[in-house]
């Protein structure tokens, strides 16, 4: 079953422990899919498997299919580095490189072979604009990225992920370490970005999920209990477990 982007019967094991149990989930074009659920239920593990980041953890094993553009990313022999070039990732804690703002963004494209100051300048500006950070940093591109505030650093990380023009953006609780104002900015830019990208976001914040996502999937103990339109999940979920979770977290 070749879908443009999604998983099919994906299971992830850490040694003998099965952290993710046979999940089949498609991510439609130009949309935001939120993954919600209690801590430790496999959401982040699942997210990380989409760009094969779990490979770095020794003892982990991924079974099933990850479809992208008709190819199975989980097939042995896949060029992992190549696939990661089409998928961007942002984490909870901002992790900009210890370099200048400019070089954080230009690093990825330079690695891909883009030379020439003009081309790189264009990419840097475009990425920073898409991340709603350009106006704040355009006069200090050569300063260290670490001189930015937490919220700015996170938008920088988003801009960095965008610099190589990915098709998919994976966000692992991108706003939970930020203050409310920065969180709002990040949510705003997610709503803008989804027009060109598929976005998958793991979040603990139910209101956030309800606000910005088009589709939601509820994870519990490694299984996906239910998924569907966000509005449907939050107002009238089919599964009792989903309902209990949502009721419990929503005042």
């Amino acid at each position, binding site marked *: 079953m070749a879908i443009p982007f999604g998983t099919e019967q994906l299971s992830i094991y850490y040694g003998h422990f099965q952290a993710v149990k046979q999940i089949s989930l498609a991510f439609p074009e130009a949309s935001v899919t939120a993954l919600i659920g209690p801590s430790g239920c496999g959401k982040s593990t699942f997210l990380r498997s989409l760009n094969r980041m779990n490979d770095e953890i020794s003892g982990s094993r991924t079974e099933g299919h990850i479809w*992208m*553009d008709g*190819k199975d*990313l989980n*097939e042995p*022999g*896949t*060029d992992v*580095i*190549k*696939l990661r*070039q*089409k998928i961007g990732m942002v984490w909870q804690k901002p992790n900009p490189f210890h370099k200048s703002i400019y070089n954080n963004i230009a690093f990825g*494209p330079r690695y*891909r*072979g*883009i*030379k*020439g100051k003009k*081309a790189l300048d264009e*990419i840097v500006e475009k990425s920073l604009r898409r991340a709603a950070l350009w106006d704040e940093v355009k006069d200090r591109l050569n300063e260290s990225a670490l001189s930015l505030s937490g919220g700015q650093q996170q938008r920088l990380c988003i801009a960095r992920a965008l610099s*190589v*023009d990915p098709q998919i953006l994976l966000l692992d609780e991108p706003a939970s370490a930020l203050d409310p104002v920065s969180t709002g900015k990040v949510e705003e830019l997610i709503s803008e970005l989804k027009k060109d990208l598929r976005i998958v976001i793991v979040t603990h914040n139910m209101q956030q999920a309800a606000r910005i996502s088009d589709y939601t999937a509820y994870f519990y103990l490694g299984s996906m209990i239910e998924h569907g339109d966000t509005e449907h999940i939050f107002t009238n979920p089919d599964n009792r477990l989903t309902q209990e979770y949502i009721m419990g977290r929503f005042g």
Partner: protein
Amino acid sequence: MEQTEGGTVMNSKIKSRRPLREKHFWEEWTGRIYTSICVVLLIVVMFSIVYFVASKGLSTFFKDGVSLSEFLFGKTWSPSSEPAAYGALPFITGSFTTTLLAALIASPLSLCAALFMTEIVPGKGKKILQPAIELLSGIPSVVYGFIGLSVIVPLLRSIFGGAGIGIAAGCLVLSVMILPTVTSIMADALSALPKGLRESSYALGATRWQTIYRVIIPTVLPALLTGIVLGMARAFGEALAVQMVIGNAPHVPTSLLESASTLTSVITLSMGNTTMGSVHNNALWSMALVLLVMTFVFVILVRLLERRNRV
């Protein structure tokens, strides 16, 4: 999809059937091979050292026919007499005596320093002692030898008479040299203890000294011993500083204040004056082999202590 200068790169197939052309493939291999070579070199060097020293050192027994028991237990070292005697006991006892005595002197001092830094005046104490310890460890061993010769030897001479050189001078110099090593290991071990240990002892009404004596030291004893063993290893292998103050007489010492020798001191002194391949020379290599064997013994001791430390 955005067309950039690297457009083809961005839109290329994910599954590459030509990994050999990819930059990152070559980069990965460069990294792995380069770093692996460095590690392999380390291993080769270590084994080479053992092999070469052992083959030279063992040739005294297998090629030149010196008996092992004469070497290890013979008191007479006179390679140039007829017949030559190759008893290395003077040097073996010299090495062991200076090392053990140095450890005996340094350990209490180190323990006090470590306790000072972590228990008595934590924070400020560390600020005073830590730089002092680091500076002490920075002083080169020849300078310690020079100080030994200029200060300790005359001092011993004026207090005890005689020449001032000997085991006493040697172990005093060595004890100062190993002080930093022993202290830092002990201090690290003490800092790594969970605070709860001390607090529960105080809660039971114990004084600080009682806590130290009855609770803390027994708990970290393996780590403290590790520090002492590593200090001894350092002392055992020290060559120049010892050689300068020990006198270098090749006989088993009967007092702390008469000229003596260690394995390292005789090697330092005689290696340059013997011809490679002669029995005399080979016997010196056998002493180097003893040094090597002792290194392994110390490492094993430390490993055994570390196993007991996994409390």
